[in-house]
């Protein structure tokens, strides 16, 4: 479990997060939703220590992140941040290989190779593995980075808008893959926290939802509790119709 207690964050004069407390349960996929600028990325970056915690406390499986070494954290949690701005000219396979770096620190062994091969196959990168990153489309780069995060082999995988730039085929494939990896019956179930922009992906695949608005938690709970007409309408400030499909919410926000 990731427990977030009384976390506030400010940059200059603006208060980005206000006294956020939330638990991310040890189950499957937790989706962070909310309007642009709600503070989703900030919260995720604080958990992964990409930003320094100003006030409050964050624990991952009982371990205070303020007192965890960089390497231990890298073995516990991987993050694929939102704006990567790829400038590097690495081959996809090498990039995914760097996901193993916290484990081998420069001397990859056979199990590292195997994990990398598995990640490449998992995220459908076989045909791209020898291509250079800076010659791929945004969506292809995104998949390569997610595969790298997966190869890191951590219990926790944090993904900030991983579906950005993906076409619908690859978006669904990625969600299905992440979902499968996070099931309890998977060989080594991962716990995934992801910022999801397209809310129906959260509705269809997430196990738990945390909604943020204006830097505070607006709602949290199971998809059927959070993804309802009153909650979503208040969250996004517009009237949103919610139907049901196969026992899960279906949000008709586009019409």
């Amino acid at each position: 479990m990731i427990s977030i207690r009384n976390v506030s964050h400010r940059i200059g004069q603006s208060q980005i997060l206000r006294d956020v407390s939330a638990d991310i349960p040890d189950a499957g996929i937790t989706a962070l939703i909310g309007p642009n600028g709600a503070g989703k990325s900030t919260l995720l970056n604080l958990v992964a220590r990409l930003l320094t915690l100003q006030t409050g406390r964050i624990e991952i499986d009982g371990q205070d992140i303020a007192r965890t070494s960089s390497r231990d954290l890298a073995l516990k949690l991987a993050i694929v941040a939102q704006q990567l701005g790829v400038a590097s000219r690495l081959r996809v396979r090498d990039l995914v290989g760097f996901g193993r770096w916290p484990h081998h620190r420069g001397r990859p062994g056979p199990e590292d190779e195997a994990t990398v091969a598995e990640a490449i196959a998992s995220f459908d990168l076989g045909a791209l593995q020898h291509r250079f990153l800076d010659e791929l489309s945004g969506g292809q780069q995104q998949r390569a980075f997610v595969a790298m995060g997966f190869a890191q082999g951590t219990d926790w995988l944090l993904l900030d808008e991983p579906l950005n730039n993906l076409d619908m085929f690859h978006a669904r494939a990625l969600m299905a893959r992440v979902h499968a990896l996070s099931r309890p019956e998977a060989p080594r179930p991962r716990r995934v926290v992801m910022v999801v922009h397209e809310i129906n992906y959260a509705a269809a695949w997430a196990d738990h939802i945390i909604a943020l608005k204006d830097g505070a938690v607006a709602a949290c709970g199971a998809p059927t509790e959070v993804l309802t007409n009153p909650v979503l309408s208040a969250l996004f400030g517009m009237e949103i119709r919610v139907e049901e499909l196969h026992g899960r919410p279906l949000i008709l926000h586009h019409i």
Partner: protein
Amino acid sequence: MRLSYLLTATALLVLSLLSVLVGAADFRLQDVTADPDALRLLLTSRLPRTFAALLTGASMAVAGVIMQLLVRNRFVEPGTTGTTEAAMLGLLCVTLLAPGAPILLKMIASAMAALVGMAGFLLLLRRLPPAQPLLVPLVGLIYSGIIGAGATFIAYQADLLQYLGVWMSGEFSGVLAGRYELLWLAGALALVAYVAADQFTIAGLGRATSVSLGLNHAQIVVLGLVTVSLVTALVVVTVGMVPFVGLVVPNIVARTMGDNLRASLPVVAGLGGGLVLAADLFGRVIRYPYEVPAGTVFGVMGAAVFLWLLLGRPARA
């Protein structure tokens, strides 16, 4: 990969052999065993000169690629971002204040100034919009222009302009045994960089990825800063700057081999050494028996390649 290593090694060998054979004085390799003068020429002049060119090229190319990864921009090198100018300014100041100081002390003063100059550039970069890759070399050129102007002003006042000229254009004709050995230190720094090759490659992926992989990003930036400033200072103090090596060489290598330094750094170093040695050789034969400085030869070729890199492909850094 194996092929690039083999090609680099072969080219270096051929160039080194040529470099040992070509020069103003008569020299044949087979005389070395019989003629003590020939041996002395080899040991005091030809070999040192060859090593100096190789070490300068290799270490400058490595410094260039490190800088490009730290800044995450392909169009920078110490000579276009104020680091070289700062190194010269430091050297100028120590020459003014303590003219009799030993060369090692001068080098250290120059390296400190280079460090400050490069750190200043990194701070400046934080204020630039990230989506404008071409702004980075532009700001670098202006920044180095300002520091260079300061150095020129001081040198002019103190009547030391000819020194600046010497430091700015790399030249190997004066290299003799006993006067270039500091460059081995630059070579050693390039080796240290190879040990940290993975860390530099990861740093090139940005801070977020570095932190996610448990890398101490700040520590790598400092290691890079120190390496680049020391290499720059060592080269400026001993033979003078060879412009564009750090810019052109990594770009050429990255096109075919990419940015995975663990694989590409030996080729970057080899190509850097080889090209500088080739420039020096070219300068030796083009107006034989007179010489054109290698820095001038490389400056002309490098500027052309730089322009081609800037204009010849889509603006992506």
